[in-house]
């Protein structure tokens, strides 16, 4: 019996939600809960996205410091003697992990967290120290899927969640603020901007 029929029959029932209203209510619930679930990863991916977009201007993963030092030139000798002499001349007391000679006068000496690239003939050395860039290294690790394995599936699930958010966001509001109202213009803007870059790619 429809609500109208019930009214005609003298029933006291009020009109329940229509199928469309039920569907929208369900969609809003989905949209809200998926939104909670993906919020953290969305922020993480967005921050990492900005960081790696500017990779030509900075190193988003590491803080690498390079210091140029000069020292009194050294005579060429065997690798281990050269490595020890360079370490002493540049003032590094940490144990030498390993060393590599690129040529009879150029040597790279490896310490824990530090690398010294030295030219014993000219007496010029570059002392390089590197450390993880806090927070960004971890965010990039997730965003660029360096984790691989299980994270690939979790990231796929997350992407599917974003698709659900996007589509449900388009249709869950009715009226003048919905897709049929002003929404379609914002949507069109969101399509037009990336589309323009794709078109320019083919024209240029």
């Amino acid at each position, binding site marked *: 019996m429809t609500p109208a029929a019930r009214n005609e029959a003298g029933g006291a029932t009020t009109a329940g939600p229509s199928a469309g209203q039920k569907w929208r209510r369900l969609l809003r619930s989905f949209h809200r809960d998926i939104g909670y679930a993906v919020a953290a990863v969305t922020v993480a991916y967005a921050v990492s996205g900005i960081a790696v977009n500017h990779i030509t201007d900075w190193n*988003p993963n590491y803080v690498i410091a390079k210091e140029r030092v000069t020292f009194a030139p050294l005579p060429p000798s065997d690798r281990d003697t050269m490595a020890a002499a360079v370490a002493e001349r540049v003032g590094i007391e940490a144990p030498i992990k*390993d060393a590599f000679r690129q040529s009879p006068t150029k040597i790279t000496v490896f310490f824990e967290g530090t690398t010294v690239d030295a030219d014993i003939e000219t007496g010029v050395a570059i002392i390089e120290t*590197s450390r993880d860039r806090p927070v960004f290294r971890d965010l990039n690790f997730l965003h*660029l899927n360096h984790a691989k*394995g299980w994270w690939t599936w979790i990231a796929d699930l997350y992407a599917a969640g974003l698709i659900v958010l996007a589509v449900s966001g388009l249709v869950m509001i009715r009226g003048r603020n919905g897709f049929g109202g002003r929404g379609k213009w914002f949507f069109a803007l969101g399509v037009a901007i990336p589309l323009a870059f794709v078109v320019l790619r083919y024209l240029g």
Partner: protein
Amino acid sequence: MRRRLSFAFVCTAVLLLAGSAGLAADGQVFGKGLSGTETVALSALMAAPDEYVGKTIRVEGLVVDVCEKRGCWMELAGDQEFQSIKVKVDDGVIVFPVDLKGKRAVAEGEFTKIVLSAEQQKARMEHEKQEHGNDHAAGEPCEKDAKPGVIYMIKGTGAIVR
């Protein structure tokens, strides 16, 4: 009680997932790891490189340099001094962290020969300068001296670092 169980479940899941990341008993595994290919000494490779072009080979050595920004290559020094070879991997497929420098690695992939024109050589030198900054020790070749040449590298498919 339920809250504690939920917390324990989340902790267990995080630990299991973290444990599944690429750490093998014999070292840190990158990409597909290693197959059964025989190891070729870098000195033998450099003595007759054209014999190995197109073949899948494995080399072992000291990691002397790593791509600082993308981790898309590492350079391995071999069994003899003054010799090294670049192991180039597809961007994002394998990522070598910079802290591999000074560690021992075994890498595998296709041995590749690339013939470069003077222009390409210049572009390559400029790119390398950009990657390293202008801070290399004196005596590095300059872009204006770029000449046509041949470079050999390994298109890496996997590696293990110890």
